[in-house]
């Protein structure tokens, strides 16, 4: 797979802070993969997200070093308006991701398109397509402020996808939602990934990360601690050093391993857990 995103030596210090929030981060994301970013609070996850989408340095002041390249193009030379069609962002609070300029979901989805001058006919086509995908086609004519948090978050995701970016950055986008709403967002993320979108996902729910990620990147105090396949990260890394909980299924597998009952691959989800359990029981 080709590299779509290449980060080299990225460091950032907020203008009101004495210490760097992230230091010398380098990694690549492959086209069409789901790369999860994990780490304790304050490890620099959000800072990386904001730097990837260009909010650093365009919106947030500070000292930035290093480069972010999308399709080999250095994003430092691009304006926000040009970046939004390459890389999108969805973050935590659903209600802070509305433009507050529209009275229907349909208009809300069109807002970003209007800013970059997409003709109305094309807006309509894109919105129809996205609304189905985001499962918001039933309330296109409702006022976004009257929707539930989960619904608004789907509108936010839709507002980002409608710009047709190649990469979508999701910064703890389900942490304020109830389990149902969160599950629905994860389903949509999988769909989008199957459509070929590259996903950069920050999340603290390791069960979900283990289930969805192709690769995992671990941050610790602003530095890149490790980046590897999900199995290698959860199976082999001493996660407690980074204040990260190992997924329960993986934990069971590791315990079995410690007791010499299991010596297969690290376990990432319930299917693998069942398979491993069968193996242990019948051996």
């Amino acid at each position, binding site marked *: 797979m080709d590299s779509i995103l290449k980060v080299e030596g990225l460091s950032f210090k907020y203008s009101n802070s004495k210490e760097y929030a992230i230091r010398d981060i380098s990694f690549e994301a492959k086209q069409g993969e789901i790369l999860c970013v994990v780490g304790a609070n304050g490890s620099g996850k959000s800072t990386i997200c904001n730097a990837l989408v260009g909010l650093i340095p365009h*919106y947030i*002041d500070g000292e930035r070093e290093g480069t972010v390249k999308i399709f080999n193009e250095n994003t430092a030379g691009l304006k926000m308006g040009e970046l939004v069609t390459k890389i999108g962002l969805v973050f935590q609070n659903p209600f802070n991701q509305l433009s507050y300029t529209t009275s229907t979901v349909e208009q809300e989805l069109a807002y970003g398109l209007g800013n970059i001058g997409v003709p109305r006919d094309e807006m309509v086509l894109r919105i129809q397509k996205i609304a189905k995908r985001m499962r918001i086609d039933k309330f296109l004519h409702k006022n976004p402020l009257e929707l539930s948090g989960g619904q608004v978050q789907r509108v936010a995701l839709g507002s980002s996808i409608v710009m047709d970016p190649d990469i979508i950055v999701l910064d703890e986008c389900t942490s304020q939602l109830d389990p149902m709403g969160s599950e629905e967002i994860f389903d949509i993320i999988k769909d989008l990934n199957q459509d070929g979108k590259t996903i950069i996902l920050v999340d603290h729910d390791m069960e979900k990360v283990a289930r969805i990620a192709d690769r995992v990147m671990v941050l610790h105090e602003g530095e890149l601690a490790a980046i590897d396949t999900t199995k290698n990260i959860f199976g082999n890394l001493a996660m407690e050093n980074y204040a990260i909980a190992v997924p329960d299924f993986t934990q069971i597998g590791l315990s079995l391993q410690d007791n010499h009952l299991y010596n297969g691959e690290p376990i990432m989800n319930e299917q693998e857990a069942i398979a491993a359990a069968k193996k242990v029981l019948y051996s």
Partner: protein
Amino acid sequence: MKKEKTGFIGGIKAEFSTMALVLIPICAGINLVGGSIAAALKLPLFFDLIGTVLAAALAGPWVAAMVGLLTNVFLALVSNPIYLPYALVGIIVGLVTGYMIKAGFFKNVWKMIITSLVATAISVVVASSITVFVFGGATGATGSSIITAGLVATMGSIWQGVLTSALINNLIDRGIAFIIAYMVLKKIPKSFVSKYQQPSLE
């Protein structure tokens, strides 16, 4: 980030960053919910200035002027069109407060009180002018119109009556609004304040 000095107009434009633009409607909202909170505490006050003062301190005079304007535009659209002419009061109070804060008149309690008195005096004069020139002396829409009429009768002059009524209405209300804004601003972490344009709260 380094800011270039590009003269008066350039300075005004620089005030209106994306964050400042988002701040404006929210400060207009703070102006209006201050009144709801006062009502919940059964205080006969409006505090319809807290958001303007915050905007002046955080983002500058022209952003504050915009807050004053839009607060009244909102009231005119949703509640009653008679609020529209009084938008001028909001604009001027925003500008005066903003420029005084810029000149350092918010650094301690006494300077803040001076700013609040100046802003109140100017708002009394502007509001009275609107009441006299646009509405002929009273809007008839609020309880204070009756006070105004009473004062006009006792003082025998339209101008004196309207000015006195506006002074009574504004002095305590605006003063307390300033004190609240000052107290809240002192509690906001510095890192937050510095995200806007101006370093005016040293």
